[in-house]
């Protein structure tokens, strides 16, 4: 490994490290596993240390999250190639196409997921990352576009689609609907 300069280390410590929780949270929701998330974040930190010179002051959060996301996609290509194949750019169509859904995704689509966090876990990658960045990390559309590497219009449509899928959960339906369904059954 090449030697990292002291100024890079100091910069990493003062500007990047404060976002370690955000990085871990993103990685945790992307990998859906604690140990895997740690691997991804460690890899991301190595990269961040190496490239901290390209960081513009003040923009550390989206910058670091972009690196985490890239590290994740490299990790997933190595470790779970199936997932990425099932989740390519045409996932927007897949999300509405019954045949293309995994059992968990199908549960969300039918509104069977019991907990909101289960529903989020089961969302296809593209929508999951959009929801996590927006609702948990509270990134602006512009920062999201930067992290996801897509235009703002695409950010908006992914968010809308992700939210629509989450809203299908039964507990999110208006109360009187649920009561009526219970009575009928």
């Amino acid at each position, binding site marked *: 490994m090449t030697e990292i300069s002291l100024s890079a280390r*100091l910069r990493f410590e*003062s500007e990047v490290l404060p976002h*370690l*929780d955000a990085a871990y949270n993103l990685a945790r929701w992307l990998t859906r596993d*604690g140990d895997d998330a740690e691997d991804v974040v460690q890899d991301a*930190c190595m990269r961040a240390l190496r490239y901290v010179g390209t960081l513009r002051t003040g923009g550390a959060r989206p910058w670091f999250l972009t690196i985490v996301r890239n590290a994740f996609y490299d990790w997933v290509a190595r470790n779970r190639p199936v997932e990425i194949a099932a989740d390519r750019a045409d996932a927007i169509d897949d999300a509405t196409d019954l045949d293309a859904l995994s059992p968990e995704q199908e549960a969300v689509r039918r509104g069977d997921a019991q907990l909101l966090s289960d529903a989020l876990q089961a969302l296809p990658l593209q929508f999951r990352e959009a929801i996590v960045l*927006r*609702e948990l990390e509270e990134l602006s559309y512009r920062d999201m576009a930067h992290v996801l590497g897509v235009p703002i219009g695409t950010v908006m449509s992914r968010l809308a689609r992700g939210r629509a899928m989450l809203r299908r959960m039964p507990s999110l339906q208006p109360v009187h609907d649920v009561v009526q369904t219970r009575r009928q059954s």
Partner: protein
Amino acid sequence: MKCDRVRPLVEPYADGELPAWRRLLLARHLIACPACAARLEETRSLRDRIRAEIPRFAAPESLRASVMAMAGGPSSRASSRSRPDYRWRWTAAGALAGSVLTMFVLFAGNAIQDRRSNEDLASVAVNAHVRATLGNQLTQVASSDQHTVKPWLSARLDYSPPVRDFAPDGFPLVGARIEYLEGRPVAVLVYRFREHNVDVFVRPNALRFGLSEPKTIRGFHVLRAEGQGMDWVAVSDAATEALAPLLRRLAEGS
């Protein structure tokens, strides 16, 4: 405006991402159109539920430690046997001076901002409390011993909040964790009161919590007190009358 043209704008509106003139147009439409207004309400309530029910995972200590080591954190730097290098010292002194200045600017800026975001703080604190309860992550350090909890917090914050156990008064200390409020780490002392969990957010007076009077949000009570150079905010589903004595003891240090 027509509904089908408005619909795609409702979520960006809820996200606060529309420019002012479009926001105005949309606000007018929302008054006249129950369907679009309902959609807005749906978007907002989904967001509230996501923030309340979905845990935001915090980096485990093991990860933080290994990353610190990777970056040549304080421990590994201290153990290196190299003779003193004055250039390094100057760099460090410069960085320190810079961060002191930054902290000062942040403090001053935040004091002003806090006053404006008055109402938000209570709901942010409640959301943090609910998230921690649901995610079963109330404490990152679980101990009723103040001599364990206090150093744990000091090591992770740029201030050192007073920590005391009030078990004899019915408020046993359970532990503590760190939350991020307004982008900054804040100490949270966790107490029990009968069957209730009580979160107490503590930060220095200079960073006052913007909360002028007690509030109740979704059945959670939020109270604030000042004392010992700190600002204290308690969040719990226990009754306000029960929380007040705990907060008073903490703030008065008695």
